[in-house]
């Protein structure tokens, strides 16, 4: 449509979102590109959050791009605005500030978030999260007056948090609900090595356990009761029920979801003009013989770029799924972080 500016909306300004915005800008210099993110911060690399706790990086050191970058590229940033609803028929998103934002093409790149296990949801105001920079700064501010931490879950986030908390001098108990720490995706000997690393670091590993109840003890401390009846007093309690794509707002949209947004090779969802990329897009991975949601930024960047080009162009590029390394973060990188 000559003459009329096309409107691109990208929900979620993570690695994939920023990559897509740039790809669109390259393809269509005239288009209106809006990045919407529920966080108030400028886009940053999530995997560096541990470094913020350790103090090896500060809040500015983890930004994906400089703050002026988006102005220079003519990309409009809407920070701190959550999308509550997407209307496929109306071609708009409804934001938490009660605005409707119309689009010609939209990318969902909201990424994943730690989910609180359903049975602990009632304690959510007492639980620490470790998904956003804000969560991270909150944890960091708690460290000086904390002695002990209980972390439930065995995912990347729980392990990463365990690592940084132990290095910050806390006594850490890691509670994993499954009977073993084994990651099906890792070779057996690496699993064993990981377990050894964890226990060698001084982390108390409680496999096959779960948190049953939490009680508030003092201003800042909690009594955590495990299923076995054992209780631990801790100042930081973290519970993860896994890492889930933040696609709740799409439930009534008619777009097909499994864990994340199901997309084809062009990163397009089941609805026209709606694309998804990064840690919230779900693709059938032939090598794994299953649907697969990415974790980690190198793949996310590629996916974002592919999605952006296809949004601005005419379904030009297929994602080379074979080049997507399914476990880059989870396997080697996690392992490497523990060593250094």
């Amino acid at each position, binding site marked *: 449509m000559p003459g009329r500016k096309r409107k691109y909306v990208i929900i979620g300004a993570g690695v994939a979102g920023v990559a897509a915005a740039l790809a669109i800008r390259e393809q269509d210099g005239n288009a209106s590109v809006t990045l919407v993110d529920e966080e108030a911060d400028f886009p940053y690399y999530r995997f560096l959050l541990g470094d913020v706790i350790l103090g090896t990086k500060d809040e500015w050191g983890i930004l994906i791009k400089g703050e002026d970058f988006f102005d220079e590229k003519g990309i409009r940033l809407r920070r701190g605005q959550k999308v509550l*609803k997407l209307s496929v028929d109306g071609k708009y998103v*409804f934001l938490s500030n009660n605005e409707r934002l119309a689009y010609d093409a939209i990318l969902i790149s909201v990424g994943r978030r730690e989910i609180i296990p*359903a*049975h602990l949801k009632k304690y959510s105001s007492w639980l620490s999260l470790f998904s956003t920079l804000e969560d991270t700064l909150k944890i960091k501010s708690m460290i000086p007056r904390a002695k002990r931490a209980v972390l439930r879950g065995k995912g990347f986030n729980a392990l990463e948090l365990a690592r940084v908390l132990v290095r910050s001098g806390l006594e850490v108990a890691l509670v994993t609900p499954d009977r073993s720490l084994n990651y099906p995706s890792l070779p057996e000997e690496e699993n064993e090595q990981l377990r050894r690393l964890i226990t060698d670091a001084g982390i108390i590993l409680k496999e096959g356990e*779960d948190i*049953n109840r939490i009680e508030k003890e003092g201003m800042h401390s909690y009594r955590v009761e495990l299923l076995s009846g054992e209780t631990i007093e801790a100042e930081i309690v973290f519970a993860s029920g896994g890492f889930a794509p933040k696609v709740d707002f799409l439930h009534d949209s008619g777009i*097909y979801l*499994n864990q994340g947004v199901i997309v084809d090779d062009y990163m397009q969802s089941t609805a026209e003009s709606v694309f998804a990329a990064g840690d919230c897009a779900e693709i059938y991975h032939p090598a794994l013989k*299953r649907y697969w949601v990415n974790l980690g930024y190198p793949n996310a960047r590629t996916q974002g770029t592919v999605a952006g080009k296809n949004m601005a162009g005419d379904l030009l590029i297929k994602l080379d799924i074979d080049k997507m390394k399914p476990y880059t973060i989870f396997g080697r990188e996690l392992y490497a972080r523990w060593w250094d």
Partner: protein
Amino acid sequence: MSEYVSRDRKDVGWLTKNIPCRTFCPAGTNIPAYIDAIAQGEYAMSYEINRRDNIFPGILGRVCTRPCEAPCRHGYEGLGDPVAICYLKRVAWDRGRFDVSKTWKREDPTGKKIAVIGSGPAGLACANDLALLGHEVTVFEKEKIPGGMMTLGIPKFRLPKEVTDFDIQSVLSLGIDLRTGVTLGEDIFLPDLSREYDAVVAATGTMEPVILGIPGEEGEGVHLGLDFMMRVNKGDIDSVPGRVLVIGGGFTAVDCVRSSVRLGGKEVKLIYRRTQAEMYIDKHELEEMEVEGIEDTYLVSPVEVMRNGKGEVEAVKCVRNVLGEADASGRRSPVPVEGSEFVIETDYLIAAIGQRVEKPPLEGFLDKKKVKDFRFGRQNVFICGDVRTGASNIIEATAEGKMAADRIHLFLKGKKPLKVAVSIKDLPGPDTGRERSYDFIDLQHMPTLELKERFDMRAEVQLGFNEDTSLLEARRCYLCDHDYQIHIDRCIYCCACIEAMPRKCILLASDVNVDDDGSMEVFEANGWDEVAAVVIDNIECIRCGNCIRACPVDCISVAKVRPLTERGD
């Protein structure tokens, strides 16, 4: 002040358009009325409204599929969550239940005898209404206990025995004769009943489980969902081995996995061929399933049951799906991905992929073309419930039973079917009994059992609202049965109401078009020169009363609109 009854289609249409919960309830329950009764502390009145409209308040207050909640006005964009209508029904039962047979009057005996086959929700609902109309009703039940799916299909931790007992007894105590252990086609036969009774109602439900139809299915170790649930409820199954795999995406499938966890299953998994969104299941059930730590996998279909040398179930070979074109139900059908086969190891397989009508006993009466208004051809045989519609749910079946009763009454007595009229009563002032602050109360959450206490088959998971939470939740209801109107002859176009409106519910209109069905189309004016009226959009209106309080000339009125059911002669 003034109250009048209207049969105008526009007024009846207003009711349909404006009280979405009631419209979407298959049984047409007068929801605002019973919620208002709870808000006033009149629990017995609330119970009675429910008992009359949907027969089984205790049961439906726990396991209803809640078609009423999704369209609730409180869930509109920017207004928060729908009212917990279902849980409030439970409040009415928990706090207000009483024996209606003592106070309700049955109509004078008609001398007509009716046989109802099947004591599930459809059968009992039908029997209930017919008994109240003065007919002599006999209910035949194949099992030893009445209730059908309500007692045998649903696990006790969702629906405790005392609840089903009370609700079923409440119906039977209206003077209904119940005969259990009587099987159609073995002990009784349709042609005989048709001769002996003035009318026969077949409400036998869909009790035959659907099989997977894949190799290796026959033999030990593979259970069918409904069979499994019935045997669990009867006490025939009291434990399951460690690894359980359930296939299916409906209520029964989820009941099977949740029961398995309680019966000793350590690794319980659910697979479904489409995605979560296509499941015939309530969101709440999925959440509880998640709490109980059950693993679910979607877009997976089984292709073969694998057995070891001894013939024991060892694993299920599965395939991943993509969703293809939409089928007749509007859902996309799963298409297998080539080369995506994989294996799930399991000790115990439950296939809960649906139920269908048991054909043999009703052979000859199931021809859909011959069943009109529940009546089979020109005979005195009526068919209602799942057996007519296919597997549905309790509220649909209850509604079926009630509608069938209405038709049977017409057949036996020549009485015209029930019709809805409306009573419209002007309120003297803006006071509807609600305060503006009620609109901001958050959805009350149902307290549930802690994880540790959930490993008991009989421990009810949902604990019910207490007095405070039920009052708070009841106050959330906007009471959509209030009709706000601006009287244009008195309006001075000052726009004070528009200033005060909480959302875009009052419009400057250039034209208003009211259709015969009561739906209203407002054409918004683009400038003052076009304004012909200031109009309240009743669909957007949340009945907050801000406009009335802001109006300087008192030109806005409120009327309470109630549905009435009338039967002509």
